């Protein structure tokens, strides 16, 4: 017995300092994306204002073509005048609520619709990925269509969906335009999830798959214990891509179907006021951009919840 203890290779359970230092660095690394986004925004503002100083007032025309945009206050209002505009009343709306309120309401509406689309897209994408992993024939049969689905131009698709939706009843209630917008959102969102998760489900090493077979684990148990956890590192970027796609899908679908209430419609409405009220269109465009950031942040919470499954460097 004593011989055995002596031979046992010496290993200490004390957490090495390297690990602790590593954790501190990791905490710092989590703040870095926020700092980088702030820096990116600052650069845009600086470049915008700088161009207003040095750029030609009525645009640069060379070789008979306009190559540089106009730098006058109608085409490029000052950043501060855009922000000022938020606190002034939206003249189109009775009751005199400010532009900020209108933009926020539009953002909330679009976020809700895009969120629903995203959820449907994620569920459909996951389902398709699992189906394609389970049956190889499903993979070879479905994957081309999954890829093909994304080459159909969105603008062509939107009126079709509205047309089909108009003939549908949804649990006894009429099909509403926003449901069409959510469908188009879902249509764009499912793709990155289906493709990403399929790769993730196929990612476990041969040894791990053989091990599950040696344990006589059913397909379902292998999915739950091995394939799904292994696909999390592939799922997270897919969710982010899907969120961006859902937002873009919702905004474009709102515009091309003429759905009222969302930020997409607001962009069009405000653009028509551009000549008399130059900063106004930018308030809506900015709102749409912030919406993308909000969606990305929400996905960030999911990543935080699933951090246990983060990829780790394989060693040994």
């Amino acid at each position, binding site marked *: 017995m004593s011989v055995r203890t002596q031979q046992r290779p010496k290993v200490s359970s004390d957490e090495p300092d390297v690990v602790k230092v590593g954790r501190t660095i990791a905490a710092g690394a989590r703040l870095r994306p926020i700092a980088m986004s702030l820096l990116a925004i600052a650069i845009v503002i600086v470049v915008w204002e700088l161009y207003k100083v040095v750029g030609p007032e009525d645009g640069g025309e060379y070789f008979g073509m306009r190559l540089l945009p106009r730098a006058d206050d109608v085409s490029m209002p000052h950043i501060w005048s855009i922000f000022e505009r938020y606190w002034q009343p939206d003249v189109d709306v009775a009751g005199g609520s400010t532009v900020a309120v209108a933009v926020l309401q539009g953002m909330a509406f679009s976020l809700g619709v895009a969120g629903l689309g995203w959820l449907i897209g994620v569920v459909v994408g996951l389902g398709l990925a699992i189906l394609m992993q389970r049956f190889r024939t499903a993979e070879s049969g479905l994957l081309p269509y999954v890829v093909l689905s994304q080459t159909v131009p969105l603008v062509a698709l939107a009126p079709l969906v509205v047309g089909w939706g108009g003939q549908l009843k949804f649990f006894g209630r009429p099909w509403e335009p926003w449901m069409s917008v959510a469908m188009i959102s879902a249509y764009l969102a499912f793709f990155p999830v289906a493709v990403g998760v399929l790769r993730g489900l196929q990612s476990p*090493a041969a040894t791990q798959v053989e091990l599950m077979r040696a344990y006589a684990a059913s397909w379902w148990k292998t999915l739950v214990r091995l394939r799904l956890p292994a696909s999390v590192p592939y799922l997270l970027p897919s969710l982010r891509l899907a969120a961006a796609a859902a937002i873009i899908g919702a905004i474009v679908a709102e515009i091309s179907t003429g759905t009222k209430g969302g930020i997409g419609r607001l962009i069009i409405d405000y653009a028509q006021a551009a000549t008399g009220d130059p900063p106004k269109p930018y308030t809506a465009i900015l709102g749409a951009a912030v919406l993308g950031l909000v969606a990305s942040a929400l996905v960030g919470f999911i990543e935080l919840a699933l951090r246990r499954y983060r990829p780790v460097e394989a*060693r040994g």
Partner: protein
Amino acid sequence: MTTAATADRAATAAPAVSVRQVSKTFSGRKGQAVTALQDVDLEVAPGEFVSLIGPSGCGKSTLLRVIANLLEPTAGSVEVFGKAADQARRDQDYGIAFQQAGLLPWRTVSANIELPLELHGVGKAKRRARALELLEMVGLADFADHRPDQLSGGMQQRVAIARSLAESPQLLLMDEPFGALDEMTREYMQVELVRICRETGAAVVFVTHSIPESVYLSDRVVVMSPRPGRITEVIDIGLGDRTESLREADTFFTRVTEVREALRGPHAAAQALGVEAR
């Protein structure tokens, strides 16, 4: 495990492994077939330790996978404890360890060892107790709640071996489990494996590339040759108790030479015999 006990059990029970006339052909992408195994016969008694040794690509892993029912043989039959191989797999009659540890990185070390127990409905407390017991055995008791990526390659491999023992199988199938270990850890693990087999009475089919390792561990060494993969020789070792001094004993080196010559093939063996006769 004494020889008498082994013989006793062998007489009463079905063999741990019985491979009869097994062939395995892989059909390649472009239609050309690879004969990985041809007409292989192998019987392993309960409690017996058998090593498979041979040049790379001679079908050692394939034979092990056929026994484990991870591959279907093209021809022939495989029985484990008198049952068809797929039945034995479903009954969890064997534990298995591969050259790659294959730990799940999102589970703790303990949860990795608990995985087979969890899959077969063993209660939480019981699972945990068994995992701790096994970790104690492989010298990693302090690492139960670490993540696999916090362990060295050798430590991961020891976790994989502990996992293969989780359900106290009477048959262990091991494919170069010590391949990634350094020499010191390797010898330590050999001693441990011999002790575990003595305590549990488990039979072992052990794939290795190391001649001294096969001689030190085994009751019998099975020598294989490639293209097509077949068994060319079976060498009885019969060295008795595995002590540390055995590694330096003359009988040990005689067996090592015997296995080495068997690996070189019949031609070389005849030459060597000729030299000896002179």
